[in-house]
């Protein structure tokens, strides 16, 4: 499947039948596990990711020297997550790269001044990979952080975007679209503040298109933020119903 | 000689039942207790010692090689390896009077250098890498032993002048916080141990 595969059909539909600006179906849940301080699970289309948060706790080892909060991420992908079996769940170049990007994006969202000399561990486990792995990993990490009760400036959400041959921007790229070529852009943003925390791009765009693609991705981010917010609200009501919060909502 | 020794030596191996535990029978080294009996945990010769008012200590003495691990409270001899503002790292090579096969790691924190004025201690003015010190084990940490020299008899016993001459001359203590090189008469700060000179010990023994 080389690069000259058309991403949009003549009817203006994508390979999986979505319209250009349509996100994949998102399902998520907070508080999946008992042991971690916070955990979350998210499905975005066929990409399924689990995240667990431990902390904040005392920083370990030599890292304890600094005064700031230490954000420690681990990105691992189950060996059966992709169509082709992987030999190692983590430690390869790709997951180390994602780990770095996650740390970078999350440190923009966490209110670091509240946690001096502490460490927050965020472990992300991709159970099924079907495109936009990084974006989903970051979204689920946000949910897990919220579940753990860690103070954030605001939701940090990520979304991918691409450009079809006839210059129509596409939101939320699936795996098939990823491999069929075309440029891909990943944006991690703080949607309310309209700030971009992280941006990654592959292949080339014409600079004229860049703005529209980023805008598409940002729109995707805002949409995802609304979905996540609804999920958090629902979770809180569910948890709080024992304490009679439900009526307040 | 050996034939006469054979009669009163009881050889035992691990897991061998030695005797019943009674009020006046106490476990010594190389033994453990199970269901009211004393069992040997090492191979060796059974040793019954009288201690105090009709109290017997049953222990197993292993001939040949002794396994020695520093324990809390032991006085050890160590060599200073690294000094940092907060602590000095040492290699323990002698426990009590037993020379060790391989050295253990020791850690001497700034607060444990001396008894008084702990906050004014400067590690660099107390030890230099290469010094041989006497110290007491106060605790066992995860990866090393925590040492202290906060006693008059503990501290540097052998130190060499830190000038770059080839012949390393051991310095002579002059006071509790200084040592002097006998050749150059340069004084250097150290946390000096008050050790009785060997000659006095010898004369004491001879008398």
């Amino acid at each position, binding site marked *: 499947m080389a690069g000259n595969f058309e991403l949009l059909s003549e009817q203006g539909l994508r390979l999986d039948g979505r319209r250009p600006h349509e996100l994949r179906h998102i399902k998520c849940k907070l508080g999946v596990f008992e042991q971690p301080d916070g955990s979350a699970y998210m499905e975005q289309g066929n990409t399924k990711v689990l995240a667990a948060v431990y902390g904040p706790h005392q920083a370990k080892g030599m890292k304890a020297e600094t005064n700031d909060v230490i954000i420690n991420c681990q990105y691992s992908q189950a060996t059966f997550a992709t169509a082709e079996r992987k030999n190692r769940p983590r430690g390869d170049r790709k997951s180390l790269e994602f780990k770095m990007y996650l740390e970078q994006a999350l440190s923009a969202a966490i209110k670091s001044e509240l946690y001096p000399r502490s460490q927050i561990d965020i472990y992300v486990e991709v159970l099924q990979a079907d495109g936009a792995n990084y974006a989903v990993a970051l979204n689920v990490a946000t949910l897990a952080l919220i579940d753990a009760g860690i103070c954030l400036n605001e939701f940090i959400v990520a979304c991918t975007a691409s450009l079809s041959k006839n210059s129509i921007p596409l939101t939320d790229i699936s795996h098939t679209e990823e491999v069929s070529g075309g440029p891909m852009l990943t944006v991690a943003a703080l949607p309310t503040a309209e700030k971009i925390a992280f941006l990654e791009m592959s292949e080339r765009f014409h600079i004229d298109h860049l703005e529209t693609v980023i805008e598409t991705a940002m729109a995707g981010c805002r949409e995802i933020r609304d979905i996540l917010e609804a999920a958090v609200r629902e979770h809180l009501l569910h948890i709080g119903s024992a304490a009679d919060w439900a009526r307040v909502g | 000689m050996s034939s006469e020794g054979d009669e009163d030596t009881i*050889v035992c191996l*691990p897991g061998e039942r030695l005797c019943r535990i009674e009020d006046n029978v106490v476990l010594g080294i190389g033994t*453990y207790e199970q269901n009211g009996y004393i069992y040997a*945990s*090492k*191979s060796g010769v059974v040793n019954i010692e009288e201690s105090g008012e009709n109290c017997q200590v049953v222990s197993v003495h292993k*001939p040949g090689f002794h396994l020695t691990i520093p324990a809390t409270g032991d006085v050890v001899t160590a060599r200073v390896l690294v000094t940092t503002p907060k602590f000095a790292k040492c290699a323990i090579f002698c426990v009590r009077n037993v020379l060790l096969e391989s050295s253990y790691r020791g850690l001497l924190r700034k607060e444990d250098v001396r008894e008084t004025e702990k906050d004014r201690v400067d590690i660099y003015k107390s030890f230099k890498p290469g010094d041989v010190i006497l110290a007491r084990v106060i605790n066992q940490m995860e*990866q090393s032993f925590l040492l202290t020299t906060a006693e008059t008899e503990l501290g540097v016993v052998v130190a060499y002048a830190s000038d770059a001459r080839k012949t390393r001359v051991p310095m002579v203590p002059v006071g509790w916080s200084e040592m002097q090189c006998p050749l150059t008469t340069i004084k250097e700060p150290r946390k000096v141990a008050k050790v009785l000179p060997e000659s006095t010990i010898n004369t004491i023994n*001879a008398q």
Partner: protein
Amino acid sequence: MLRVTQTKNTLLDGATIAEDLYTTPKDCEECFDSLELPGKNPTKLCPRSTFVRAGVLTTVRGSAYMEYGNTKVLAIVAPPHELMRASARRMNMGVINCFVNFAAFATGELESVPEREKHLGSMLTKALEPVVCRTEFLNFQLDIRVLILDDDGCLLSTAINCCGVALVECGISTYDLITASSACIYRDNVFLNPSAKEEELLRKHRGGHALAGSDNSSPTAALQEHGLITTASMDTFEQVAQCQQGGYLSPATYVKLLDYTLTINKSLRQIIRRVLTARVKEQHELDVREKAESALEDQRLAEIIERLKQQGLDDFIQTNIKEDPFVKR
């Protein structure tokens, strides 16, 4: 349609590796025929001819060497030292690490060596954990190294025996002496202390034979049990320290094999006891002699000091100076 085209496998082409003995099921068959079959119930429950010696190396303290039939094993126990990794720490317990290595000439096939070394190491650690008084060296790790010089079956059990001796030799506190042995069952024959050939037959063929008798067509046909069992025991309290079993056994057979190995362990214990007692006596004598010698030395020194005190220093020096024959008087 997805098509997978596989060219002919060169390895299976016939002639290339046919010279290597023991590669096809037929070879297994022949190998089995060449074995001396002990039958269903072994009569002699005894260990192989055994040679054990403690303290074979001079530079290392706790060493032991053992020959069990043709299997030759060397074990070394180093005094406990600080933990390498803080994460390996267990509450109130020391950590035991066993490393097993094959000498380059010990075994014919080199491919599976790293895997077997790892497996043996982890099994050995499990077997030795109960016997060592691990509370005596908190926050320490005890490294036990085993070198296999010659492999003729019963590797794990011989290694356990040898390590047991080395532990005692090093003066590590142990609750008891530990002895181990193995037994296996293959095609209704019970092999005690199986040789390398028998073990390999069992392992490689994986009881492929067992299936023949238990086809679905005749479910009532007797099952071909097969399996290997290695038991380590401590006999003072009649404790089983480790019992590792693989294969496919009915519970009754399992218990039968277990009892066989326990009986063998008892006789092995006698051998090891004898060796260790002799070793203690030998070292004790050495100690006594050394003590006597140093006492003699002390006495001599005391005499000199006594004389010194009586004669005074000058006199003493005078009497001790030999006359220089080259000085003219």
